[in-house]
């Protein structure tokens, strides 16, 4: 192993632009960072790897001054930009000092136009001069944004929103740009483009701290990398060194033998289980005003199989799930689950049929505990009414205890046992994703719809998730419809794949067929292991 272990602290490189030393951070007494040091040399890209809950986002919050907004405090340690302390400053002041963060989940201003979003970013300059140049620079980097400058940010596709979030941060002309999960929820093709743009920004003279679950991309573009685990730095070194290290290869790049995880026991729930029925989607069309989100999409999901739906951002994948669960109405065509016509039913009726889903953007109550969120998922299967539960009648109490037992069992399967009592807000994004899945499972579905279940997870975590899902499917005998961008995950799990592009079904078949389909390669996957020139061409062709 060539990477430096932390025990013998490496000498800080001279001329570090941003310097973090021995930082301790806690949220209401719960420690999140325990002595983290990081130095960002001028003009370099530093990647930050680590599992969910390792403290990466917390570190960025400490750098950008937003820790207090989340109830966190810096207990000890220093954060310095060229020798000037940033600790305790207002976020807006830190932006003026030159440290600017593009937050996780993009967080663009949805009601503001693209132009106004960038104007908001320009406040970080603290002065008006040079604003026109900053606009010109951002629009040169992202010509797509210029085409849509008058549109509301909320109407952009996922990739464009990410560009806008980066563009907004660049308006302040940062010395150090902090990027939190820029790849989250992006199609493979857009992902490569964002990677290239990050490198370009760096070459133009901005140092970058890149927090990323996609370690492949991160290590490819970064000069150096730091691995954070449970609030501490466990590895650091140059990207090349870390790419060779066993730990990184196994845990983050998904290479090598892979971690051994004990076989998980699935508690077979006792109440009202039904076996899966075929799901048939016929000529499904959804229009919003003049926009066609889905156009005559047809496919069949066999009982007990996993069916993946993939496609670029904005292809209509989430719309499809929304129609299947009664959130949106179909304009034309229909979807049947067994004999029931889903497109004619309202959401609660669909749920009662045993159709359960997870949401891309998480639909959980942030202030409730994990256990409470999961119990909510069992609402459909809870018999005690308002009165008997309110009066705590013996039958209601017995039922409550029984429900709690089932919830605990499902939590154990998904590795959430330790988190049951904590409020959701204190969980990392990837852990919340598992709570979301657990909540869906709590309804004991026979058809499970998963919307990007592994977005925001590293390679190890997503492999673990794949195993859990496969096991749940086998043990419980349910069908799964899966929307996801992580191709390794999709191809490993799916029995059949449907590819959508601009609402049209462009391919449908076995995973390996679809993967070779030239049309799919062009529209979605971008390059496979192809040469660099090909990559460039394909990106050039891909319009908004």
């Amino acid at each position, binding site marked *: 192993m060539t990477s430096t272990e932390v025990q013998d602290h490496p000498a800080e490189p001279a001329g570090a632009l941003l310097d973090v030393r021995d930082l301790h951070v806690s949220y209401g007494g719960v420690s999140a960072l325990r002595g983290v040091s990081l130095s960002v040399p001028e003009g370099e890209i530093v990647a930050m790897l680590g599992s969910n809950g390792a403290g990466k986002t917390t570190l960025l919050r400490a750098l950008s001054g937003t820790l207090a907004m989340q109830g966190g405090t810096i207990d000890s340690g220093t954060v310095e930009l060229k020798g000037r302390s940033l600790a305790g400053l*207002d976020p807006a002041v830190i932006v*003026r000092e030159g440290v600017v963060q593009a937050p996780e989940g993009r967080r663009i201003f949805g*009601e503001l136009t693209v132009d106004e979003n960038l104007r908001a970013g320009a406040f*970080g300059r603290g002065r008006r001069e040079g604003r026109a140049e900053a606009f010109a620079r951002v629009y040169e980097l992202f010509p797509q944004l210029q085409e849509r400058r008058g549109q509301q940010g909320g109407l952009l596709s996922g990739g464009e929103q990410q560009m806008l979030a980066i563009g907004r941060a660049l308006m302040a002309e940062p010395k150090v740009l902090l990027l939190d999960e820029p790849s989250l929820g992006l199609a493979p093709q857009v992902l490569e483009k964002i990677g290239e743009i990050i490198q370009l920004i760096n070459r133009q003279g901005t140092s970058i701290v890149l927090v990323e679950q996609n370690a492949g991309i991160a290590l490819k573009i970064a000069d150096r990398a730091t691995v954070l685990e449970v609030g501490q730095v466990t590895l650091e070194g140059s990207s090349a060194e870390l790419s060779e290290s066993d730990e990184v290869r196994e845990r983050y790049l998904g290479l090598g033998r892979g971690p051994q995880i004990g076989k998980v026991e699935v508690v077979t729930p006792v109440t009202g289980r039904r076996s899966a029925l075929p799901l048939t989607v016929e000529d499904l069309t959804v229009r919003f005003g003049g926009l066609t989100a889905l156009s005559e999409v047809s496919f069949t999901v066999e009982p007990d199989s996993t069916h993946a739906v993939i496609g670029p951002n904005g292809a209509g994948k989430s719309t499809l799930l929304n129609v299947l669960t009664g959130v949106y109405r179909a304009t034309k065509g229909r979807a049947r689950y067994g004999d029931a016509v889903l497109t004619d039913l309202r959401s609660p009726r669909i749920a009662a049929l045993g159709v359960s889903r997870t949401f891309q953007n998480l*639909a959980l109550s942030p202030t409730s505990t994990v256990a409470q969120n999961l119990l909510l998922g069992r609402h459909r299967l809870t018999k005690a009414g308002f009165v008997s539960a309110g009066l705590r009648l013996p039958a209601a109490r017995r039922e409550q205890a029984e429900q709690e037992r089932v919830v605990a069992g499902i939590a154990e399967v998904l590795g959430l046992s330790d988190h049951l009592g904590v409020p959701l807000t204190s969980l990392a994004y990837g852990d919340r994703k598992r709570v979301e899945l657990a909540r869906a499972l709590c309804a004991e579905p026979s058809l499970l719809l998963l919307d990007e279940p592994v977005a925001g997870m590293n390679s190890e975590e997503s492999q673990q998730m794949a195993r859990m899902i496969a096991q749940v499917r086998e043990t419980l005998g349910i069908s799964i419809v899966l929307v996801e961008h992580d191709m390794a995950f999709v191809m490993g799990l799916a029995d059949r794949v449907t590819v959508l592009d601009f609402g049209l079904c462009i391919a449908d078949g076995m995973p390996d067929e679809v993967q070779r389909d030239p049309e799919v390669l062009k529209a979605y996957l971008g390059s496979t292991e192809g040469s660099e020139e090909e990559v460039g061409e394909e990106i050039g062709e891909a319009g908004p």
Partner: protein
Amino acid sequence: MSQFMELLISGLSLGCIYALIAMGFVVVFKATNVVNFAHASVVMLGAYLVARWHGSLGFFGAVAVAAVCCAIVAALCDIVLVRALRRRRGSEEVLAILTIAINIVLGTALAREVGTDLLPSGAPWKSDVTHVLGVTVPQTRIAAAVVALVLMGLFWLAFTRSDWGVAMRSAASDPEAAALSGIRLGRVAAGAWALAGALAAIGGAFFTSFPAAGVNNTTGLLALTAIPAAVLGGLDSTAGAVVGGLTIGVATTLAAGYQDEIAFLGRGLSEVVPYIVLLLVLLWRPSGVFGTREVTRV
């Protein structure tokens, strides 16, 4: 018919004043997500200061100084009280309750100061009237309508075009992301409160001018009527504040004007009418006429 026209015009001109006051609610709500009940007592403060000072400063001078004073008082409320609570992560509901407390304290202090007096606002148009389309309209109301329209136009321009407007809307949309973009949330909030305070003072001055008799100890209570105006238009919509203000203005004036015809419903109905209209509108549209409905993309 002529009585109806008279009441309608009078109602619309009163509505402009309501709209001006309701706009203050909307500005604070948009920038900070707080329903600012203290606004009503700031309206009374403005009216009181104008009534006290018009003798020495003249009506316009008094309005200008009162606007500045109210802006400062409102901004201080935000900086000293609301901000401290927000720092400790107080929820929006708690902040709203804090503003009710501010309203009670400030309102009571002013009511004690006014006592049983009736202080005229000293508007230069006195009780003069003008005939418009054969309808008699008090000149103060015409002045109020013109001032309100000009101020609302300026506000709309600033809100949609200026940097201040962008900062305000960004902060309303996602405070944390706004802070990360370099927007100083504290300043945006204090600025919104100050603007609301200034609008309250100007609204208050006209609110207590002819045909109203002047400031008395119930002015703060009457000014609360602007809350239904803001809510029924949609708390986060400036256009809604205008429509809500005009609706409430017309409704109260009509109820007062036809009180003999509707006497079977009881006397003093005009004071209740704003709330009845509010209930009916909210049953039809729970987020107000122009309010943004809670929309999330799943």
